[in-house]
């Protein structure tokens, strides 16, 4: 097969780290090439170099047999390279078509953009590649999955031959992931090449033709997907065997820690998002919340952690009402919270790692005494957590924004799991983490459960919910459709309930098959 792009011996160093150490990487025409590796292995850095966002310290990029230097995204686009970063760069109030043509507008009469033509063109493009979008919808009104399609259309509109997708599935629901697969296959059929970064090895096995593994900034090797399996890839990535599923001990239930009675709340657009939700979590128990994103999970978590007001109902924590208390007084009651979006809620990217690791208990000893900060203790805390959770950072006073995505997530997890707690509310705790780290975090969550902590786990990963939870509540349209015991929970049944079918019907449906 024809090779269309080659990166040879790429070197990139940042203060204190060698992010890429003589990495060689090639892309062929008509292939889906997966790029995998641990958090901080250098995947994003390598792709940013290819897209002209970073200048490499050494090495060559060869396109169509010619040595090329790509010093800006503009050059990259000219060379047919397009990048969809994990965080979308769309302009919210503009429409889909406006976002796609931005910078390349066709003009009707020198001044005004010809939107009719633009909408038409976007429509044609979306039909051609099977990327269904409504050209006139505003970005802020469409789901994350559709936004991603817009990003892909944007680079296709610029006639990219090589599409780079950085962890595209981290934010997608399983259905959306399936749809993305279809799109990628059809792009391949049309002769395009796709570079696909992911931490999920089943995705690698599902769609890629070849896999390149990075570890510690070095390329470990490139293999044909058909000649490998997930276990082998895992050990190439981590350098040791990885348990793909953690073992769970029998549960020892204690008293009820959290009780919700008929809690209702509205979302940011003032529409009902939680409708009379009641549930209970006992000490030593993990309650998983399954459901397609946007069915009230976010609002549920926000009400519990004091970030959103409930409109009615009651929330009791160990017998005390905590409804509509502020987040500090809830944290004071030994509640920890891992928010779903680390950049939005979990981290202050401009603060260094040490300052991020105290966010929450920062105002009390040992970090603050009578209003004065004790920096020695702040740093000591950072050194401990960095070692314990293996956060890859040059030092504790490195700004959080320069860490790799997964290592940023580790900061949040380390901070929230590190303390003495009685209730843990976690949303998407392992989004963007590599498998070794997921295994580690899952173990830590189970350890807390065994120590008698009550845990509410929200996750878009059904496998994560199924392997950790003692009971699984399925949410649909602001309601809890049903609660399943761990033993009775089957993936198909949960899937059905996620579309709003009640537990009884879902069980019956299964029997009749």
């Amino acid at each position: 097969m024809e090779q269309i792009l080659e990166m040879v011996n790429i070197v990139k160093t940042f203060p204190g780290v060698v992010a890429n150490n003589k990495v060689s990487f090639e892309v062929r025409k008509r292939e889906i090439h997966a790029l995998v590796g641990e958090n901080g292995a250098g995947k994003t850095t390598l792709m940013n170099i290819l897209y002209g966002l970073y200048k490499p310290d050494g090495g060559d990029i060869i396109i169509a047999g010619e040595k090329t230097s790509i010093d800006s995204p503009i050059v990259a686009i000219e060379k047919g390279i397009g990048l969809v970063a994990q965080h979308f760069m769309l302009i919210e109030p503009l429409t889909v078509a406006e976002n796609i043509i931005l910078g390349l507008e066709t003009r009707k009469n020198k001044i005004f953009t010809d939107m009719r033509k633009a909408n038409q063109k976007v429509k044609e493009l979306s039909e051609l590649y099977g990327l269904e979008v409504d050209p006139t919808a505003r970005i802020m009104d469409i789901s994350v999955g559709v936004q991603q399609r817009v990003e892909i259309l944007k680079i296709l509109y610029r006639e990219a031959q090589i599409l780079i997708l950085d962890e595209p599935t981290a934010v997608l629901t399983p259905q959306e992931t399936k749809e993305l697969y279809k799109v990628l296959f059809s792009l391949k059929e049309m002769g395009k090449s796709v570079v696909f970064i992911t931490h999920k090895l089943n995705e690698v096995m599902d769609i890629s033709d070849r896999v390149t593994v990075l570890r510690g900034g070095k390329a470990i090797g490139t293999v044909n997907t058909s000649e490998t399996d997930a276990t082998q890839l895992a050990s190439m990535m981590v350098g040791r065997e990885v348990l793909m599923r953690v073992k769970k001990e029998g549960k020892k239930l204690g008293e009820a820690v959290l009780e919700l009675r008929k809690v209702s709340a509205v979302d940011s657009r003032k529409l009902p998002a939680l409708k009379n939700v009641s549930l209970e979590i006992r000490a030593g128990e993990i309650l998983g919340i399954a459901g397609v994103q946007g069915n009230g999970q976010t609002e549920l978590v926000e009400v519990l952690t004091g970030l959103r007001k409930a409109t009615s109902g009651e929330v009791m924590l160990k017998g005390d009402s905590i409804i509509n208390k502020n987040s500090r007084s809830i944290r004071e009651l030994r509640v920890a919270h891992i928010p779903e979006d680390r950049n939005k809620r979990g981290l202050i990217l401009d603060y260094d790692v040490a300052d991020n690791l105290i966010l929450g208990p920062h105002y009390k000893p040992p970090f603050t005494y009578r209003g004065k900060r004790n920096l020695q203790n702040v740093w000591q805390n950072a050194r401990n957590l960095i070692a314990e959770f293996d956060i890859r950072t040059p030092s504790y006073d490195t700004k959080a924004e320069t860490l790799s995505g997964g290592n940023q997530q580790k900061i949040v997890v380390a901070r929230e799991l590190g303390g003495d707690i009685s209730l843990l509310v976690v949303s998407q705790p392992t989004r963007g983490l590599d498998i070794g780290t997921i295994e580690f975090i899952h173990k830590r969550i189970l350890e807390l459960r065994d120590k008698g902590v009550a845990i509410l786990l929200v996750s878009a990963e059904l496998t994560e919910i199924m392997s950790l939870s003692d009971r699984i509540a399925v949410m649909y349209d602001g309601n809890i459709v049903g609660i399943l015991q761990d033993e009775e929970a089957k993936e198909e049944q949960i899937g059905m309930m996620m579309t709003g079918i009640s537990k009884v019907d879902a069980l019956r449906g299964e029997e009749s098959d």
Partner: protein
Amino acid sequence: MTNTRKGKCAKYFEVALYPVIATCLALLVGVIIMLVTGHNPVDAYLALFEGAFGSSVAIAETLSRSTPLFLTGLAVAFAFKCGLFNIGVEGQLHVGAMAAAVVGCYLTGLPAIAHIPLTLLAAAVVAGIWAGVPGYLKARFRTHEVINTIMMNHIAIALVSYLVVHVFRAPGVIPRTSTILPSAQLYRFIEFSRLNIGLFMAMIALYLIYYLLWKTNVGYEIRAVGHNDKAAECAGINVKRNIVMAMVISGMLGGLAGAERIMGLHLSFIQGFSPGYGFEGIAVALLGRNHPLGILFSAILFGALANGGFRMSMATAVPTDLATVIQAVVVFFVAAEQLAKLFIKRRKKGRLAE
């Protein structure tokens, strides 16, 4: 540890480098303007330098001109650390000055040791409340503080004009209040100069704000809100209270700047006494990178340009406006550099967000 310290030095150097370059470039632009308009730049700059730093009195006068700028620059920077643009320092300075003039004049029978602190306190409190209003509106209703502080500037200046013309006016041609009592006057410690102990007050303020921002929990929370209010909220920080508090403290600094002018320089509230100290504070904060140490230097630079510019226009035929032009060009270059930084950051965003 040594590694960290070295990193810090390098950082300070880098932070200081651009403003220095900007200043040099601005002086160069001044040369070009003078050459084009037919003046001798060497003579002019010598006069400027001489006027600013040529004698101990000149230095004292430069520092006197810088004194309010330390405080107004600090006021702008402090609000900025909480993510707020306080454009209203000018108004806060005016109401603070008026409060100082009234308390300094009408509160009788106190020794200086009590009268001075009380007068300063009055200025700080009134100006703090004045700034707290847009802070509260922002926290409660999310109305933008830029609009509100600008409007409050107009209200403040109209209000104090009314007070000085109709309520507290002393006899005489210029609208001014009666001279404040000696017990409220700030001690001038250099002969032939109006430099007063307000300078030390400003230095203490610079240090205290530095300490507050980086060594205390209050500062940690204020900066957290400034960087990412959503994450701050999630960490249990009361975002609204911090916004109001940051505006109040910022306003208090502006009020103190006004008080120093009244208690140490003019000794009464004179209508139109401020050449725009509050607005200059925005430029000072920008050039000083919103850091107290940077503000120390940039306020002195601006004070020197204003003070030396006067001498320059007397000694050579170059108008004082040239000093103003240089100030403006310095700000321009610094702003351009910030813009360039912003642009680079935007380009990097792709990876940052990942």
